[in-house]
């Protein structure tokens, strides 16, 4: 997912991804028809997707010590939500606490993604539609996070001092 143009180009580090969905079986997406499961935990999927997007935009730090901003992710919902019954309603919701390790300031950034996919009769088709639905809602949530006004404002506020120091410093 392409990242928006930020005022400064800070390096991010995802320190932790925590599941806050209160779901005892986070990998179980659907109980009906013998169950449909995710191949990995939602926290692992979200971390991987975020890291890939940041890496593609050259905004991922090599380590926590070299990062300008450290993000802690709280996943509130990942998978299917209650819909009309005629379709699959995919929903991904998470919040990131973005922290400047130097100043200690932090800002919360919320993101959410939704998607609606058709139902099907055969289990193979159901699995395919559910997978497409969840992937689409994850893409939507990532886009909402990376291209959202909230992240832009958070980066501007948290890197205010760094940006001021850069402009104040004399050119060599």
């Amino acid at each position, binding site marked *: 997912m392409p990242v928006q143009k930020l005022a400064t180009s800070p390096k991010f580090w995802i320190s932790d991804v925590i599941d806050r969905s209160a779901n005892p079986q986070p990998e179980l997406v659907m109980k009906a028809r013998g169950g449909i499961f995710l191949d990995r935990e939602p926290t692992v999927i979200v971390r991987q997707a975020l890291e890939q997007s940041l890496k593609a935009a050259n905004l991922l730090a090599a380590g926590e010590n070299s990062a300008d901003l450290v993000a802690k992710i709280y996943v509130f919902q990942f998978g299917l*939500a*209650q819909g*009309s019954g005629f379709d699959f309603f995919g*929903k991904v919701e998470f919040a990131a606490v973005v922290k400047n390790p130097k100043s200690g300031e932090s800002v919360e950034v919320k993101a959410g993604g*939704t998607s*609606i996919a058709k139902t099907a009769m055969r289990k193979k088709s159901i699995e395919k539609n559910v997978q497409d639905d969840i992937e689409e809602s994850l893409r*939507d949530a990532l886009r*909402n996070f990376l*291209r959202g006004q909230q992240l832009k404002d958070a980066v501007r506020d948290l890197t205010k001092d760094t940006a001021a120091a850069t402009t104040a410093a004399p050119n060599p």
Partner: protein
Amino acid sequence: MRIRFHLALVALVLACTIGAAGKDAATHYKTIEAKHFTQAEGVELDPTFGDYFYAELRQELKKQKLADEVIGEGETVDDADAAQSLVISGTITEYNKGSVVKSAIIGFGVGSRSLKMDANLQRRSNQQNLGVVHVHVRVDPRWKPAVMAKFAAHQLVKEVKDESKKSAE
């Protein structure tokens, strides 16, 4: 004679296609942002209804191809595209859950579950109001409110399309 007829037919089809394309171009936006609809006081709808309606609305906007891109709530738009971008926000003003008994005994639409909402269309760059759309949906009281969201989203997007065509004229 036959060749002339065929040529005339081709010309007619071309004229219709170009005309339709021109009409679409007048009402086509770069981006559309749909916001979560708020609920007026007294509206007793499940909190999940708002999320489902939001998802349905975005799905319907994508389907109707009113814009190049349907963006999520709170996403940024390039300054160059802001003048050709639309923001849809609104309020659910009235919800009546209906009566299954009345619907079964009397029928003819009596006891239907109904939903009323107002939507505002705004240009993103200068917050210019492009119109207000009123939607009223009635469904069978035995159906889930989420089904009503589906119908409401469909009708709302249809009205938005008509309204934006009117404002373009």
